[in-house]
């Protein structure tokens, strides 16, 4: 499939959702409305940590206009000692995150919800709910949570036999690190911290849920997986999955943050109790206080190398904040950190730490940027110490086909070295910086990528066009890419293919949009389905011509007779065959469902130029190029969009994004004014170096694309700041006050001014 004769694969076709989005027609969850619909609001904890002694909702229920009130008591109970895993989540923790049970665990933790005839009355009723608390001491930062006398969030959680806020650990071992370090000529060890950062989707969480008297439930919501919404709602409400239809709305950004539910089960119970459709829309403040972010972290990384740059040992310890309930992405941090390199001795250890913060949610390569920040920073220092070009150091140690990675796999054909070579050869890397206090940094990164369950249905319409249905919300171009592939396989025009995202009742189970899995997996099932459709089309033509189907080929969008028959019949187009479908056996279409495997990892190398205003501590990015092995760029514009979006988020993480807590244990910057994501004018045009080393295990060579672009960013920026100033800054963000403080602490730089 990867040849130049492709007509649609690799083309920048017009995005199918574009017109709807720019004309305001695209229907997001908050656009949904129904006759008789009422609104629900959530009562949230004023304390970061407290035992709930009692909840009295009677005054709220008595308020005119209130139709239903819900607390944790209305939902299925998940005892803490019985794990109920669902994907990377566990329903014990999901249920307690959705509505507090025994305890409130962070400021903003939902306690109860009220549905009323309008939002104002719902909010007023929330204020009438009386909750009695036993207020407890709290811990926000990792160091406070793992201190000897730390307040313990969960009595049932033990580490080393004692009550602890360490919820779990993960270890990867390869070879013998002690022996490795003994061989090293140079050993560098450093410790780092990163702040929690939010996914920053523009669309806040929203849903409308309607439960009929017979319990048949319809959910319109914005999520990264309608089947995830269905499963979690079923678990939490006790309504069987077959009675729930979850309809995916157009999604206004997710980046991992919409892979779990906050509202849908609550709205379901309120709808069930009130008999009315219930709508919930979070405010930005609610999003910032009680959803997402990804973990803050502290880590220590030690790398040993020979004088010639051969890395002989790597060791990393990563503490990640889980928020108030277990489940931080230690696998991404500990597993991906050393993955771009062929190192014989690796030891990588992760700690999952709970504290009184909102529960973390997935964020683009969860955990991986944290691990990469530490490892890529130490590698840069190693390069300086060895007097080696930092890219050549990486290339010398690059993982390749056959490399055994510490997290398990032995790599098949991968494209990591190619990303470093492309960076080394690039015009960007070879253009010297000229200004004062300018610097260049590089960093690499890895993400596992994922396969998993997907379903597709390919139907030929009566007029000879094609409708493809898949089961994944499109957060990054999957519809356009699937249309490119389908048009290519069928040899028809892109415009003839319409790609739909089915609801849970109209397409088979499809795992959520996450792990960079969607195009990889759905292309596989769409390919299988389309190949079946082609077989049917050949069969229909054969029937019409009265020849054996093996004597028919599908070429250029039409059935053609072969061999001895080639001159006997004129070829038949899709349109002609569709018109005759009923006479030749009925509707034409095929579906396919599979648990896909073979999603191989993705690698990227970034080059970043910055300039530092040394009087104000402001770091500005001057130029940035992202080199990535994308397998096969089915739709290059979308691939570039993924790369640029990930880079922008990485720069934000590096420079200004952070959760700031006040002394009362509350988020002090719950909005986009003081939670500073980059705005357009903060960034230069972000350049992309797309490298295509096709994934040998995929029909179109696809590798996941969407997550690895975030991974190298924070380290690339930090390394560039070092190049500009000669100062290693080990704590993110590199915000103006932090950078100026580092400059002020460094007298040699002041003398140089």
């Amino acid at each position: 499939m990867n040849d130049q004769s492709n007509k649609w694969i690799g083309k920048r076709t017009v995005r199918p959702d574009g017109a709807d989005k720019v004309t305001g027609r695209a229907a997001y969850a908050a656009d949904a409305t129904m006759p008789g619909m009422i609104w629900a609001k959530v009562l949230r904890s004023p304390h970061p940590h407290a035992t709930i002694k009692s909840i009295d909702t009677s005054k709220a229920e008595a308020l005119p206009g209130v139709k239903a009130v819900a607390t944790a008591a209305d939902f299925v109970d998940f005892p803490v000692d019985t794990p109920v895993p669902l994907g990377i989540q566990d329903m014990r923790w999901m249920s307690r995150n959705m509505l507090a049970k025994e305890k409130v665990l962070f400021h903003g933790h939902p306690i109860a919800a009220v549905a009323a005839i309008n939002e104002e009355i719902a909010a007023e009723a929330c204020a009438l709910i009386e909750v009695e608390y036993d207020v407890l001491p709290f811990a926000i930062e990792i160091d406070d949570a793992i201190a000897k006398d730390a307040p313990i969030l969960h009595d049932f959680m033990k580490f080393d036999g004692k009550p602890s806020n360490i919820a779990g650990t993960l270890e990867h071992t390869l070879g013998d690190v002690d022996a490795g370090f003994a061989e090293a000529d140079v050993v560098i060890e450093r410790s780092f911290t990163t702040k929690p950062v939010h996914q920053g989707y523009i669309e806040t969480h929203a849903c409308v849920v309607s439960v009929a008297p017979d319990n048949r439930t319809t959910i319109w919501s914005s999520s990264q997986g309608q089947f995830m919404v269905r499963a979690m709602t079923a678990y939490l409400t006790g309504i069987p999955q077959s009675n729930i239809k979850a309809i995916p709305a157009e999604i206004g950004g997710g980046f991992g943050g919409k892979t779990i539910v906050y509202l849908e089960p609550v709205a379901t119970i309120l709808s069930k109790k009130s008999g009315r459709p219930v709508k919930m829309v979070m405010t930005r403040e609610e999003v910032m206080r009680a959803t997402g972010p990804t973990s803050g972290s502290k880590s220590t990384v030690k790398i040993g190398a020979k004088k010639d740059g051969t890395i002989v040992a790597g060791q990393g310890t990563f503490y990640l904040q889980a928020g108030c309930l277990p489940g931080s992405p230690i696998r991404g941090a500990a597993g991906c950190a050393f993955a771009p390199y062929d190192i014989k001795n690796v030891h990588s250890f992760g700690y999952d730490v709970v504290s009184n913060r909102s529960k973390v949610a997935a964020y683009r390569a969860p955990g991986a940027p944290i691990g990469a920040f530490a490892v890529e920073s130490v590698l840069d220092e190693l390069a300086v110490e060895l007097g080696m070009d930092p890219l050549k150091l990486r290339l010398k140690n690059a993982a390749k086909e056959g490399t055994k990675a510490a997290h398990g796999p032995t790599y098949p054909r991968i494209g990591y070295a190619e990303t470093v070579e492309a960076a080394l050869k690039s015009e960007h890397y070879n253009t010297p910086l000229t200004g004062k206090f300018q610097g260049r940094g590089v960093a690499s990164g890895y993400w596992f990528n994922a396969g998993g369950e997907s379903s597709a249905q390919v139907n030929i319409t009566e007029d000879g066009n094609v409708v493809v249905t898949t089961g994944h919300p499109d957060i990054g171009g999957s519809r356009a890419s699937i249309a490119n592939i389908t048009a290519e396989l069928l040899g028809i025009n892109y415009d003839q293919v319409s790609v739909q995202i089915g609801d849970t009742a109209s397409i088979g189970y499809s795992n959520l949009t996450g792990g960079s899995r969607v195009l990889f997996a759905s292309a596989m099932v769409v390919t299988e389905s389309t190949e079946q459709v082609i077989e049917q089309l050949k069969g229909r033509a054969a029937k019409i011509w009265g020849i054996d189907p093996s004597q028919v080929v599908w070429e250029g969008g039409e059935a053609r007779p072969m061999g001895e028959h080639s001159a006997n019949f004129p070829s038949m187009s899709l349109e002609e065959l569709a018109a005759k479908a009923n006479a030749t056996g009925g509707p034409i279409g095929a579906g396919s469902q599979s648990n896909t495997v073979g999603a191989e990892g993705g690698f990227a190398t970034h080059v970043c130029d910055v300039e530092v205003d040394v009087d104000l501590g402001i770091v500005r990015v001057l130029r940035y190029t992202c080199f990535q092995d994308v397998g096969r760029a089915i739709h290059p514009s979308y691939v570039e969009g993924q790369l640029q979006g990930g880079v922008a988020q990485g720069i934000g993480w590096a420079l200004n994004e952070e959760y700031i807590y006040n002394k009362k244990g509350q988020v002090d910057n719950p909005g986009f004014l003081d939670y500073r994501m980059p705005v357009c004018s903060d960034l230069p045009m972000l350049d992309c170096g797309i490298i295509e080393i096709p994934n040998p295990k995929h029909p179109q060579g696809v590798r996941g694309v969407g997550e690895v672009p975030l991974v190298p960013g924070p380290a690339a920026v930090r390394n560039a700041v070092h190049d500009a100033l000669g100062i290693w800054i080990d704590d993110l963000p590199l915000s103006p006050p932090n950078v100026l403080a580092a400059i002020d602490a460094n007298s040699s730089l002041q003398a140089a001014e």
Partner: protein
Amino acid sequence: MSDIRYLAPQTLDDAIAQYAAAEGAARILAGGTDLLVQMRSGLLKPSTILDVKKIPELTAIERTADGGFKIGAAISGAALEEDPDFGKAWPGVLEALNLIGSTQVQGRASMGGNLCNGSPAGDAVPALVAAGAVATIKGPNGSRELKVEDVPAGPGKTNLKPGEILVSFTFPARPKGSSDAYLRMIPRTEMDIAVVGVGVSLTLEGGTCTAARVGLGAVAPTVLLVEDAAKALIGSTLDDAAIEKAAAACSAACNPIDDKRGTIAYRTKVAGVLLKRTTAIAAERAGRT
């Protein structure tokens, strides 16, 4: 849900009468870019909104008899930008006003709103203070004038009395060799709030600074007039020693808080840095060769 009354009086007298009649339950609406945000967040719940944009005195741009300007308090930054003369005389005031928000916000945001909102970080205010602008205020007891630096009373508070409306700003005539500038420090490039803001207005005669005023924002409960900084500049040729002294005066004037937007140490240092940079721009605009 409580209803909100919206009034849009056509004359200043009507506005003053209606404002007084509402007895403190009304809020004045100019561009609304602060007011509506505060209402949405639940911070304010006025029962009456008094839109002052239909009142001629609040939207006029006039030249005064002595060659200065009288600018209506409710004029948006975008409208003021269109005036052919104001920006030539007061480029610093105009750039401060039009740093606010985005293009959309600048179509609505006014100097009066920026000042009356009472934020120590309001961008137009240090430039207005540096300009020596005087606010004309009118209420049930008649008109009075206040120097702009005397209007703010603390975060979110002004010295306007109940029932008083800010009508206009009067800017003095500009001697030859005068100009002004405004700079703010924000972590991003736009859509942000000043961590420190500095306005400088000065007059140069034969290379010597004969007049100067310095306004300093976001480093104290109110925007400050930094007289010591001005003194350091006046009489100098804006040489390094004078500039250093003025910068030190700005740092010394700071009485900031440690908050999510910046530390005390950071704000104090940056106040001095911005004084230097702002003075350099103002001097260049004033014709320093």
